[in-house]
């Protein structure tokens, strides 16, 4: 009997032990290790030669132009992707909201890029954006627009990467918004119709507030997700031309073998930024959001 009691006491811990071990070993411990590394001038070849430098790496980060460039690029990328994706997916979602066969086909179609690897997407768009043989410049020519250098010029490279990211993301967010729209009770709209409210007013006063929790969710997920951007940049531009598309993660990646301590310190900064963004969002916006 006693044995059974003891077993019942430890049973939950046994069941969660493998999961907790994985999380501690591959998430919690690495975070601590990252902070530890950020305080060192780390020597990859000979660990004993690593030198404790305190906050030197961090002061170095704050004094370096290339870090600010990466931070700036990431911020522009994030603002661009978040605004464009939110506007376009809201627009498409409201447009495709009605149930129907063709609408679901279109929805499934615009979602397709989301299940395909970023590598494939980046390669296809590299080909479309090829300045001389690429299809986009051909279409530009057809409609009488001047050709663009797309990824080859530091003026247009970042916006080109933003276009690809938005193109890939729209389908997912459209579906989330459609699901939100369809969960709104029709009786609310019927009441508005009785009051002869204009379509714009219905959208602004009913639809938007009703789906604000989902919009809030999208805002958070997309902002944090955009701050982690790497794959598109790595495949499409390699951070170039002239560092025009170097983002924070690409910056961290660039130093991973040459200067681990500095790279780790930048990782700590990125983690702090992501944490801060999450915190601010929840603080500022959660009160303004209408929860059902």
């Amino acid at each position: 009997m006693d044995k059974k009691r003891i077993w019942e006491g430890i049973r939950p811990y046994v069941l969660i032990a493998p999961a907790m071990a994985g999380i501690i070993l591959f998430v919690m411990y690495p975070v601590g290790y990252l902070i530890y590394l950020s305080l060192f001038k780390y020597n990859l070849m000979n660990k004993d030669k690593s030198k404790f430098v305190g906050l030197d790496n961090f002061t170095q980060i704050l004094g370096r132009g290339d870090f600010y460039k990466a931070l700036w690029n990431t911020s522009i990328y994030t603002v661009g992707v978040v605004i464009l994706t939110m506007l376009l997916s809201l627009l498409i979602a409201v447009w495709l909201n009605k149930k129907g066969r063709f609408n679901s086909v279109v929805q499934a179609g615009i979602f397709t890029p989301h299940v395909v690897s970023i590598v494939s997407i980046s390669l296809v768009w590299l080909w479309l954006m090829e300045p001389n043989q690429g299809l986009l410049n051909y279409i530009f020519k057809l409609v009488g627009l001047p050709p663009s250098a797309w990824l080859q010029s530091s003026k247009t490279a970042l916006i080109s990467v933003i276009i690809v990211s938005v193109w890939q993301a729209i389908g997912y967010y459209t579906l989330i918004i459609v699901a939100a729209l369809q969960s709104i009770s029709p009786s609310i709209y019927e009441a508005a119709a009785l009051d002869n409210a204009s379509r714009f007013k219905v959208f602004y006063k009913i639809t938007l507030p009703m789906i604000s929790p989902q919009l809030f969710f999208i805002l958070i997920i997309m902002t944090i997700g955009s701050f982690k951007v790497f794959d598109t940049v790595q495949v499409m531009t390699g951070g170039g031309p002239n560092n025009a598309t170097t983002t924070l993660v690409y910056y961290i990646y660039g130093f991973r073998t040459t200067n681990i301590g500095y790279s780790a310190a930048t990782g700590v900064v990125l983690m702090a930024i992501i944490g801060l963004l999450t915190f601010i969002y929840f603080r500022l916006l959660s009160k303004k959001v209408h929860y059902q």
Partner: protein
Amino acid sequence: MKTFDLKIVWTMLGYLLKAAVLMIFIFPFLWMISTSLQTFRETMTFPPTWIPASPQWGNFAEAMQAGPFLTYFRNSVVVTGSIIVLQFLIMIPAAYAFAKYKFPGKTLLFGMILLAFMIPGQVTFIPVYLMMADWGLVKTLLPQIIPFISNAFGIFLLRQYFMQIPEEIIEAARLDNASEFKIIRKIMIPMSKPALATIALFSFVSHWNDYFWPLVMTDSAAVRPLTLGIAMLRETEGISNWHIIMAGNVILVVPILLVYVFCSKHIVKAFVYSGIK
């Protein structure tokens, strides 16, 4: 009568516009397939060749010869498959304990899982790589597998699902002297199939497509997955051989597109469900 005509015109315009939007998202993939069957000359002509004069199936063979693609493919299958199987073995008992047991420290431990969910691999990859190197694992597939076997998001989702399964059913089984293991196997798993399918599809799509993690965790062709192999085609084939690069790309995309076509409803549901909850 006139308003009726106008209505038809509007509906037709709506369909046309929808078809146009659909093309914006589908066309790049069609163009990828078209290019993969063109000759080098055809890729270089202007105006572009829409449909290749004679499909160049040899492009695929050439792409496959640019690297050890069978190895890449096997690596992708092994890594993705192992992650899914191991995730399930670890996640189900954990989610069950978090959903159905009371124990000291539960809130704290579950909080750690939620926290882990928010810390991205793009932040922790350097320390994880160093750990793997210390353990002598970088020449194996393990660095691509073991960091993912504890799926914080999956545990969270499955716990929510388990909590909805009524306590009475479990109590009745216990009265019949069913072991906890049997309860998990005979009640919890069959009753949460939609959630399990969601997590499995989600894992499959994200790990089959992953690029960042294998890129930072591997340094030899023997352990690289398909995504890295395809991305490297540009280096081995030269940046202007678009027909070969797109042929490789087709090899990477087609399996996932087939899965998507056959279970698009489930995949879409899986993504939307995980997004809203």
